[in-house]
Structures are given as structure tokens and as C-alpha cells.
């Protein structure tokens, strides 16, 4: 295995990236250290981008960042000017919850259980051994916000959790960081066919959530009128009405966005807009309400009558109006190929979005909004060493992740796909591929 993979390393890579592994003679008490030399570091902090900077990593954390760090380390990487960013934070996908989309038995991000709405949480269903974990990790994704897929008949249909792509059995970084919901054509469809009834149902959920807060003892004792929502769902909603947890609304039409802004104000809740095809048409209102937008910057298809305004330069327009942006990956491939979000970000840049805003939209911005920003998303001392060394501009289609560092350690980039490629890259000599390991 090892020899095979060495063979396929191109000369260029061998020359440009020399990893020196020094034997560790010290006792097991010594800290595990990794030193990255001569990198172009996108700190995503007030320090901006540093050239020829070194990063010293100790026990999974960034210990120091600066020029000419001459500390002895267990591993040293000469990055030779290559670019370093935080690991990609993918959002709103089903990594670890699905193997093959079309095989329901491999899909845990959706439930038909009508009793479970806002309380539907997924983190326990996460499978760290899914092939999607190493596939995305090898290409720079280090954490993800998993989210429920629409389907259980509720307008608010479940909770998101932030998961590590470490591959170990303790992947939860933070749970219940958001509740996912929907408003517009699909929501109306399940709420009797009209936006008006969907809005009414939504209001009922919030009214009952407050009733629960005020009367939970009577409700739990069965001494209260019958409610439309399960106890579990009403419990889950408490963090929302207390403004601790935001609601991510899938919404597209400008008038629906305005409706939700009013709804959020009236109910005093925090919301995030997802999809948001026509957000640019009401960008100032969104900015004034301090509501972030989560969108796929590649999507410019007027795919429905509620997304007629979908356009390719929407990210730049929203940014100009002062709206915080989080990027989704490309369409239905946002799970299997969540890593390609960086290419979407590059496209947004080509349509006028400032570079650093694009980079932050799949790293530090989602961390700031959903959680984890105290230790991830910036490259500075004290932060977790969750980094990618890119062999070029991280937003560029001709760039690859050269090294991925998670919890301070270099990630093994082997994937099912890389194994298949090794097996089949030369089929000219021997036909029986089944014995190629």
C-alpha cells in the first residue's frame, strides 16, 4: 500500500513539500508538536493574511504564529509559500447520515415520523465510518453542520448539530445549534395549501411553545388542554423562544422573506435565511434585521415560481448591503461533495464578492453564527489546529488540498476513491484487478 501510494506522488509534490519526521526520543510526557514553515496564512483574524509565516502546533492547538519560529518539533513541514486556511466548515448537509441518496436504508437525515418535528435531532445517527467522511476530509472539510432533510410534515422539522470529520466515535462538537424550517411553496403545500395557513400554523407552534414555558408543570401532569405539538417538540422550541438557538428557514420569495422578518420581530426570535433566491431584492431589510443568509452561490436557476429572482451575483449584492453570508455547496452534491463549496466561493468572487468574505463564508462565519468560533475559524494562538495546506489559491479549481490537519495531526488522505484509482490507474499489464489491494 505505502509503496504504491509513494509511486503515484508526482515529483512536483515530493520536491515542493518535504515532511521531515524526526524520531521522538523524549518520554511520552512530551507534547506532540508540528511546525509548518513558510506558509501564506489566511488567519481570518484582524492579522489578515501573513506571508512567510510559521505555525507551531502543540497538542492539537495552535501554540504560536509568526515569522521564524525556530522551535524543534516532532514534525516539520516546509510549506514553501503555500496557502493555509482553517479547515472547511461545510453546512446544512447529511454527511455521516447517508451513504447513497437513492437508498433509503442508508439515509438517516429524514424521518416520516409525524410526531417528531422540531425535536428531531441527528447527531446520534452520525456514522463516522461513512465513506463520505474521509472523502470530504481528504479535500479539506474538517467539520460540518448536519441538518435534517425536509419530510416529516412539520414546518420546523429538526435540529442541526456540528460534527467533526475526525472519523472517531465522539464526533459531536455542538448539538442543537439551530432548528431547521421551511416557508413558501412546500411548506404551504403541507399546511393546507396556502401560505396564509402555513403562517397560522407557524404562529401556533410559537404560541404553544410560550404556553409550554408558562404552564409546563400542568402540561406534563396532563392537567392542560390538548396541544397541537408534542412535548418533545415544545421542549426543543424553548431554546428558540429564549433566543439561544436560531431558526434556519428555507425560503426563497422576496415577499416570504419580508414575512419572516416580520414574524421574527414579532416573536422575538433569531432567524437565518437559507436558499433565499430573492434575498437581494430585500437585501437592506435583511441587513437591518441583522439576519444572515445561507446560500449556494452557484445557483442562478429560477427553479420555481418563488425563486424567479435567483441570480449569480447575489452573494456580492447581499454583502454590499451588509448581510452576513454562509455558503452552501453545490446543489444536491452538497453532501457527497461538500468540499466543492470553495469553488462556489471562487465563483462568487468572480462575480464581485471580496475574497476574504468568500473565504470566511465557509469557515469562520458559520462558526460565529452556529457555534465553535471560540476555538475554530481563525488561525491564531489558542485555536484548534484544524487547517488545510493548499497547493495554490484555496478557491481555485486547479488547487488541491495538500495536507489536512485535524486536532493537530496530519490526516491520512486515503479514501475509497483513492484506493480505486490506485487499483485501476494501470490496467495495461494484468487484467485481474481483484487481487490488487
Amino acid at each position, binding site marked *: 500500500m505505502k509503496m504504491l501510494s509513494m509511486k503515484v506522488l508526482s515529483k512536483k509534490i515530493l520536491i515542493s513539500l518535504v515532511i521531515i519526521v524526526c524520531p521522538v526520543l523524549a518520554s511520552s510526557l512530551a507534547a506532540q508538536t508540528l511546525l509548518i514553515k513558510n506558509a501564506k496564512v489566511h488567519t481570518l483574524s484582524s492579522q489578515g493574511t501573513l506571508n512567510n509565516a510559521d505555525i507551531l502546533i502543540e497538542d492539537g492547538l495552535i501554540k504560536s504564529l509568526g515569522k521564524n519560529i525556530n522551535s524543534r518539533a516532532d514534525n516539520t513541514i516546509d510549506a514553501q509559500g503555500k496557502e493555509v486556511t482553517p479547515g472547511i466548515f461545510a453546512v446544512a448537509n447529511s454527511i455521516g447520515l447517508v451513504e447513497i441518496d*437513492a437508498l433509503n436504508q442508508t439515509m438517516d437525515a429524514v424521518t416520516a415520523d409525524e410526531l417528531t418535528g422540531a425535536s428531531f435531532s441527528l447527531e446520534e445517527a452520525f456514522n463516522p465510518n461513512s465513506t463520505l467522511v474521509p472523502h470530504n476530509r481528504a479535500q479539506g472539510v474538517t467539520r460540518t453542520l448536519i441538518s435534517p432533510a425536509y419530510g416529516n410534515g412539520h414546518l420546523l422539522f429538526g435540529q442541526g448539530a456540528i460534527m467533526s470529520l475526525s472519523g472517531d466515535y465522539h464526533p459531536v462538537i455542538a448539538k442543537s445549534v439551530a432548528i431547521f424550517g421551511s416557508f413558501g411553496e412546500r411548506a404551504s403545500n403541507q399546511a393546507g395549501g396556502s401560505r396564509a395557513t402555513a403562517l397560522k400554523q407557524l404562529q401556533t407552534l410559537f404560541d404553544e411553545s410560550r404556553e409550554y414555558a408558562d404552564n409546563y408543570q400542568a402540561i406534563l401532569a396532563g392537567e392542560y388542554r390538548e396541544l397541537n405539538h408534542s412535548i418533545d417538540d415544545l421542549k426543543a422550541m424553548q431554546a428558540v423562544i429564549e433566543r439561544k438557538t436560531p431558526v434556519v428557514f428555507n425560503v426563497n420569495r422576496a415577499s416570504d422573506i419580508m414575512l419572516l422578518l416580520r414574524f421574527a420581530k414579532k416573536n422575538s426570535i433569531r432567524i437565518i435565511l437559507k436558499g433565499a433566491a430573492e434575498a437581494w431584492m430585500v437585501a437592506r431589510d435583511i441587513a437591518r434585521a441583522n439576519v444572515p443568509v445561507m446560500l449556494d452561490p452557484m445557483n442562478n*436557476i429560477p*427553479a*420555481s415560481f418563488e425563486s424567479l429572482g435567483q441570480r449569480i451575483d447575489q452573494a456580492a449584492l447581499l454583502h454590499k448591503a451588509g448581510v452576513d453570508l454562509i455558503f452552501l455547496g453545490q446543489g444536491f452534491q452538497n453532501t457527497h461533495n461538500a468540499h466543492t463549496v470553495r469553488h462556489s466561493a471562487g465563483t462568487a468572487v468572480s462575480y464581485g464578492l471580496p475574497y476574504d468574505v468568500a473565504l470566511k463564508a465557509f469557515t469562520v462565519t458559520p462558526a460565529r453564527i452556529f457555534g465553535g468560533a471560540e476555538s475554530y475559524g481563525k488561525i491564531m494562538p489558542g485555536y484548534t489546529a484544524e487547517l488545510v495546506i493548499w497547493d495554490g489559491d484555496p478557491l481555485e479549481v486547479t488547487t488541491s488540498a495538500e495536507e489536512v490537519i485535524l486536532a493537530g495531526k496530519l490526516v491520512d488522505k486515503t479514501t475509497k*476513491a483513492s484506493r480505486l484509482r490506485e487499483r485501476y490507474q494501470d490496467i*495495461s499489464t494484468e487484467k485481474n484487478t481483484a487481487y490488487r489491494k
Partner: protein
Amino acid sequence: MITKLKPLTLAALISAVIVSCSEQKEEQHDKDKPFASRYQAQEYAPVFIKNATVLTATGEQIDNGSVYFKDGKIVEVGEDLSEPGDDDLLVIDADGKWVTPGIIDVHSHLGVYPAPGVQTSADGNEMTAPVTAEVWAEHSVWPQDPQFSLALAGGVTSMQILPGSANLVGGRGVTLKNVLGRTVMDMKFPNAPHGMKMACGENPKRVYGSKGRAPATRMGNVAGYRASWIKAQDYKKQWDAYNKSVENGKPGKKPKRDLQMETLMGVLNGEILVHNHCYRADEMAVMLDIAKEFGYKVSTFHHAIESYKIADLLAENEVCSAMWSDWWGFKQEAYDTVAENVALVDKAGACAVVHSDSAVGIQHLNKDAAKAMTSGNKMGLDIKPKDAIKWITINAAKSLGVEEHTGSLEAGKMADLVIWDGNPFSVYAKAEKVFIDGALKYDRDDKTVQPSSDFDLGVLKPQENRL
């Protein structure tokens, strides 16, 4: 030039029309036929592009290159050519810019699955029987689909619109020039052969198996294709005999027309090209054996996720593979992805094509090709933009049977080309100007040269176009 039409038999006429003929007379004749192309190239001034980096798609990159075209055709391509003397010559200084042939997508559903994607205009999949060779995608195409213009802004000058993949045989595909027209006939690529969509694997067996009818398995799929070809062979035999009797001056009884069989016979006659949705390598090999059994050729395997496993076999059979750079996992037959698929197929000497099957993807085929190139280079191959550009131009043209007319920048070919604002193998690159048959059909810097479909008018704000 043929100046007079010789008397032709029906079969010969069909094949003469379908096989590449650009002669005026025949084109006119063709136009009288039902559903024939009524596309007319727009008249435009002669154009001279200079100081560009030119990817010809013949394997060359010309720095400081010039491209001269006139009357819809490319006249000359080379390094630092001297300016021609046409009075009305339009000179474009493309310093810092790149020129490529127009992008060609061999797999699109624009028009048959238009935007907005509502049931009332979802017309791409005739899921009512496993073999619907009788349906033609062009009879579903809605020319006002706003997605055509989006694809144009991505540099796409031609595309094949295919029926969906629910059926063993889904029907005929049509190759269009990416020009807005009032009718689909105004968009049809003149004299391009029809395609015929076939589908392997999961889709047909799921769609029909779930209705409790054949096919419900992959072996059922194969039995279904073979049964159809047996019928088609019989049909062809009847028509061959009839045509021969006409030629001999003693016309026999004319066989009854059967639209389904006409399409299949078109394949057996080599006039219609097979475009076969097929993911798994082992299934592609089975499909090649079916082609052998009935004496036809597969032009292209589409979505060919596993082509890398049998790249040698595909090269040997001269079959193209149309692929994505990285899509995978949406169904089991798309599980064995490798990012090097396109590069490995190319390396084996087989025809590699990057396709979209997506209204978003079609706008970024240059980036998808760039990703496929990068993966190939990462494993140690040496693929340059001048090579990779073929995957979305000349190889796509080959797949569609229009390579004599378009797909590369060579004298005499249709002047279908794109001026990019930089290296097209970059995420930041955008098509700046798109020429189709020598006429400027899209200009990023000039709103008046950005087409809007009827749908785009007044639908967001009454006074404005959608974008």
C-alpha cells in the same frame, strides 16, 4: 459543390441529409421536411481577434494568437496574423484574454425540463413504457426556457437535448445551436444527426419494476433492449426490400410506418447515434456486446462513472465517455467515483467528454474540465489546457457527430467561439463574448447583446427583464 440534386432513394436521401452536407441546395431541400432545421446564421461583420491566447482544440495553444472569421466560418487561426483588409472588419484586441471553441454539452435537458421546474412543463421523461423510441426530445423543447441564455453566458454554443433516463430506450435527442428562437426548428443544428437515448441500470428497472412490470432487473433490461432490436431488424428488412423494389422500378407494397421502429432502424442504418446512460463498467461491456449482436455502434456512454475501469475496452471500441469531474453517491451505480476518471479515459486513448446534465453545471463546464485536468495532473499525468479543452469541445462534437462542422478552431469550420476574460481553466474565468456562426450572440459588457427569453420579461418587475 453539388449544383443539381440527383434523384435519390428515400434511404439515400435521409442519409445524405443526415451525414454532413453543407451544400446550399440540399440544405434548402432539408428545410422543406417536417421538423427540419430552420436555423439561420445571423449576418455579421468579419471579425479579427488579435493578441489572444488561443486554445484551438486541435492540441495547440497559440500565445499572441489571432482568429479571423467571416460569413460564419473561420478563415484563419494563427500566431500574430496580419490584419485582413475587409472594409467592415471588426477588430477585437484580446490582450490578456483567451479564445476557445464554443463549449458543447452532449447531455442537457434544457427546454425539456425548463425553469421554473414545475410539473406542467416537465416534459423530458416519457415514463409510460420501457421503450419509447418514438418520442423526440425536440417535440418537448420549450424555446423560451430562460436557462438557454444562462448557458450561453457560460460559453455554450451547442448542446444535445436528451430525453430522460427512465426508459430502456427513451427517444430521440436533438442537437441545438444555443440561439433563442421562436420555435425549436429555429434552434436546430443544421444536419446534425439525431441521438437516441438508452439507459442502463437502476432507472429503468426501478421505474418499471416498481409498477410490477418488466424490466425489474438488469437482466430484464438487457432482454428488453434485445427484443426491441430484433423487431427493428425485421422492420429494417421490410423497408430495405421495399426501397430496393422502388429502385428496381417495380415498387412492392409499402410497409406501414412505425415511429418507434423508425428510430431504432435509424440506429441500425448508422444515421442516428446511440447515447447510452450507463454508470457501471460491467454494464457498458454488456451494452457493447448487444451493439455487436445487432450491428450498431454506441456513440457515447453518459455519466460513465466507471469508465476508468474499462478505458482500454472503450478505446478499442471507439466509444466516447461523457463524465462529470466529481459527482457521485446519489445512487449505488454512482458509488465507485474517482476524480481521475476523465483523465484516465483520455490517457487510454479513448474519447473523453465532460458533460453537465445540469442547468447549473452547463454554465461552468470549463471549470469542471479544469477540475478533471487537475486530478489527472495530481496523479502524475501531464495534461495542459490545450488538451483538456478537447473534453468540452471537439470530443463533444465527435460524440454528437458534428465534428466536421464545429468543436475546434480550424479554417472552414463554423465560427463558434468564446472570448474568455482570462484562462478558462480558472474559477475566476468568465465568458466575455460568445460567437455562434460568426455572429456575436452574447456580450457580458453590453446588455443589448444578452438575450432574454419571453419568460424573463416583466416577470419580476413589469418594467424590467428578469435579470
